Each structure stands twice: as C-alpha cells, then as structure tokens.
C-alpha cells in the first residue's frame, strides 16, 4: 500500500491568518507608525503642523463638521458637491459608453467610424486636457463633470464593445428565431448580459474618476472635497487634510462595496472573475 506523505505545514500555514485580518494589521501598523513619528515630532516642536497629533486631527474633524460663517458645514457641503459631480459624471459616462458601445457592437459602420478614434483618444491622459477644457468650457461645473466623462468614456465604451463581441453569436441568432426584434434583443438579451460586467469595470475605474474630480476641483471650484484639500494646503492644515483624505477613502470604499453587493445580488449568474457567466455547477 502506498502511503501518502502528509505535507508539513510551515509557520505561516499553521498561523492561518485570514486576509481581512492581515489588512487590519497593516492598517494598524501604519497608524501606529504615524502616531510614533508624530509623537516624536511633537516632543521637538509642540506646534508641529506637518504630522498633527490625534488630538489635533480630532479638532480638525470638529472644525470641518461645525458651521462656518455662511451657516454651512464644510465637510457636508464639500461631500455634496463632490458626490454630485462624481455621480453625474459616472452617469453620463455610462450612458454614452453603453449607447456607443452597443452601436459599435451591433453596426459595423459605427465600429468602423469610432473604434480606432476611441482607442487613440483613450491614450490621451485626461489630466493633460484639463487646461484646454478650462479654457474652452470655462471654470464652471461642466468642466469638472466633463473631465470625468472624457476620462472614463473611452475605457467603458471599449469594454461594452468587447463584451458584446464576446457574447456567443448563437444568442443573437436564437433571439431572431424566437421572433425577437433588434431593439428587444438589445433590451432583454444584450444589455442585461453586459451590464454586470460594465458595472464591474465602472467599479474598477472609480479611482480614476476620483482622481479626475479632485484634480479639476483643485484648480477651480467654490466647494468640493478636492477644493477644500487644496485650499487648506496653503495653510499647511494637515489636521483638516488628513480627515478629508480618509473621508474620500471611506466614500470610495463604500461605493466599491455597494457596487460589489449590487452586482452580486442583482446578477447572481455573473462571475466577475471570468467576466462572463458562472460555469455549469453540475
């Protein structure tokens, strides 16, 4: 009889720490490291602004959450403006990408006209276009939203197009044999099949959207999270900048998780790892 030798577990395998705990440990380490450096800096200089103590940060948070001279709470009003711009930008990026991507996937002439153009346009770093956008469209809201749209639309459009191209042609032919009209096929067969994958792509590109938004707000705005960070930077107000950055990270994390949950619950058949469908389980 052949004896199967049991593999010896090494120290890390025995320890078996779950991934989430590792993340928490690493975050705790960073916070601990920050606290230690900040503590030493404050022994030398109790007025140090570069690495504020936790007490200073909590005062910064209190300040951000208290009403200013106009009667508004800065953190809330900045969040409201930033999220409004972000959501409008994401909505239009998604709308344009779906419309254009579906047209490119369905009609050869659209693909011929737009494919190469979008591929090359997508190579231009959107932030390089920011000064041009400010000159052309002015310093208003539209520029900030437009930058998100310009940044995300090429990526999302090509994603929609590729997803349609990857759908089995059998699905289209079968829809015709079942009597489905082209618009119905798009509505009931194509759109629902590509939507989770496109939402997943949107989720991955959220970080870029934030980057474009903060860059645009830093140059010209009256309110917004990016605007505030770059405004108080002039006074080295790290006690406000750090909570704002953490707040942006928290919103980002929340949006990411929400989209993940939405995709998982609304599209249980979708497997984000192979970007198509779950394999037959039997």
């Amino acid at each position: 009889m052949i004896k199967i030798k049991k593999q010896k577990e090494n120290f890390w395998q025995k320890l078996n720490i779950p991934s989430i705990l590792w993340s928490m440990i690493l975050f705790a380490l960073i916070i601990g490291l920050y606290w230690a450096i900040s503590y030493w800096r404050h022994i030398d200089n109790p007025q140090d602004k570069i690495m504020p103590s936790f007490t200073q940060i909590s005062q910064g948070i209190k300040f951000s959450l208290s009403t200013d001279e106009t009667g508004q709470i800065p953190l809330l009003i900045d969040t409201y403006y930033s999220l409004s711009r972000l959501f409008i930008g994401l909505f239009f990026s998604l709308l344009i990408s779906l419309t254009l991507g579906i047209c490119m996937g369905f009609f050869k002439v659209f693909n011929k006209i737009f494919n190469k153009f979008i591929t090359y346009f997508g190579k231009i770093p959107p932030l390089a276009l920011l000064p041009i956008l400010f000159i052309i469209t002015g310093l208003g809201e539209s520029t900030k939203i437009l930058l998100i749209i310009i940044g995300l639309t090429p990526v999302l459009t090509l994603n929609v197009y590729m997803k349609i191209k990857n759908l089995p042609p059998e699905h289209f032919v079968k829809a015709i044999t079942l009597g489905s009209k082209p618009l119905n096929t798009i509505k009931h067969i194509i759109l629902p099949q590509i939507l989770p994958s496109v939402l997943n792509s949107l989720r991955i590109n959220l970080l870029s959207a934030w980057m474009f938004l903060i860059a645009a707000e830093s140059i010209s705005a009256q309110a917004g999270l990016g605007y505030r960070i770059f405004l108080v930077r002039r006074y080295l107000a790290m006690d406000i900048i750090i909570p704002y950055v953490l707040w942006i990270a928290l919103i980002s994390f929340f949006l990411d998780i929400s989209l993940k949950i939405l995709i998982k619950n609304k599209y249980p058949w979708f497997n984000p790892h192979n970007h198509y469908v779950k394999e037959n389980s039997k």
Partner: protein
Amino acid sequence: MLKKTQNNFALEINNISHYFQNKWILRNISLNIKTGEFVTIVGPSGSGKSTLLNLILGAFPPSKGTISEFGENKTGASPHCGIVYQKYPLYPHLTVKENIIFGLTQKEQLIDKKNQDKKALEYLSKVNLKEAQNKYPFELSGGMQQRVAIIQTIIANPSIILFDEPFSALDFSAQANLQKLLMDLYTTKKKTIVFVTHNVEEAIFLGSRIIVLGEKGNQQGATIILDKKIKEPYPRKEKFKTSAHLNEILEKIYNLKF
C-alpha cells in the same frame, strides 16, 4: 403567414456549396425536406453537418446555391425556423421560467403575464422541471438545460426545428430521456425537424429520413452520400434500438466509403 407550397416542401436546398477559410466545406448539396419530416444528418467530424444546419437556419448565406423555406428564398434567420444548440442552449441571465417566457412573448402572439406564467409552467411540468423554474442555467445539469432549451424553442411555435448535436455532451441516460422527449414532441406536434448528430444509432432511432454527409472521391467538400427513408412507425420504442432493421441500416452506413 406561411405559404403552402404546391409540393409540400418545408425546405428546398438547391445545389448549395459553401467555401470557408480557403476550402470548400460543402459541395453541390440538393435536398428537399417535406413538411412534418424528421430528417437526421450524420457524418464524420468536419464533414460540414453543423455548417449545413447553420445555412438552413440562415445564420450565414451559402457561397453558391439557394435555400427556400416554404417556397420563399431564405435571406437570414427567421421565426419560422427554431434552433436548439448544444453549446449555449439558454440565456445565462434569465431563469428557467424567464427563458421560456422570452420564447413565448417575442412573437406578439400572446398574452397577459398570468397566462405566460401558466403556459410556461404547463410546459415545464411536461419535462419535470417545474421545481427548477426559478433557477439559473448555471444551476442546472446539461440534460436539464437541454430540456429547457427544447421547451423554449417549441413554445415559440416555429414550423421547422433544427437541432445542432443537442445531446452529444450528455451522459447515456440523459440522452435516452431526451430522445424520448423529442420523440413524444414529434409525435404530438408533427413539426418538421432537422437533427444533426454524430451518433449514427441516435440518427436512425429518431429520424424518418437519414442523410449521411461525406467527401466523395477526391472532391474537396462534403456532399450527400446517402439519403434513406427509415420506415419505422412513430412513436418508436426502445427495442427499435436493438432491432435487426436498425442494425441493417447501421451496417449500410458503416460500409459507406467516406
């Protein structure tokens, strides 16, 4: 509205040839299929069975020749001609019931939501899948998926139904169950069926007529090398599979020189 042709042909395939990736796949195929016939097409791998089926379906046009459906020249896929595929038989984002209702509602022939559900469940009961109505295709076995796919196609009420090796990836018992289901449906609905398979026994067991594709001599591209009627009444019993009649046809096919 479908025309009734004088000669009662559901499909007329007139001398078609198909050229793909620098070679002839099919050469000079002529075939007339009567309304209500159950035609099975067999042939070795790469003999162009599925290509022929896709040409009949209208998924793409033949390089030469024409195909007529109920007397009208075929220019693309149409609702008169349904298909059951081996691969991707169902829409993955729809549940079993939704897949069936999609087939039911597209022709604007029917009906309010309550009746859609009722009819879908009635058909699902016939194939013992009522309990699986809210499941997604990825939760079903291959055999269950094929049963739903057959129902999805039949419920849309096409005049011709094409099958592209629908049972070839299934185990023996699932194959036998589906053959029985198909036989029952053919006996009751009397649709025109074109069934492609690489399983010769299955082709003889199911079909009222068997077509064998293969290459003749040095000619590139497959053509019809046998076209034979199978005179066995429907519904056919399991014992037909072991009968002398079936074995005789089987031997004839195996003796053909491809």
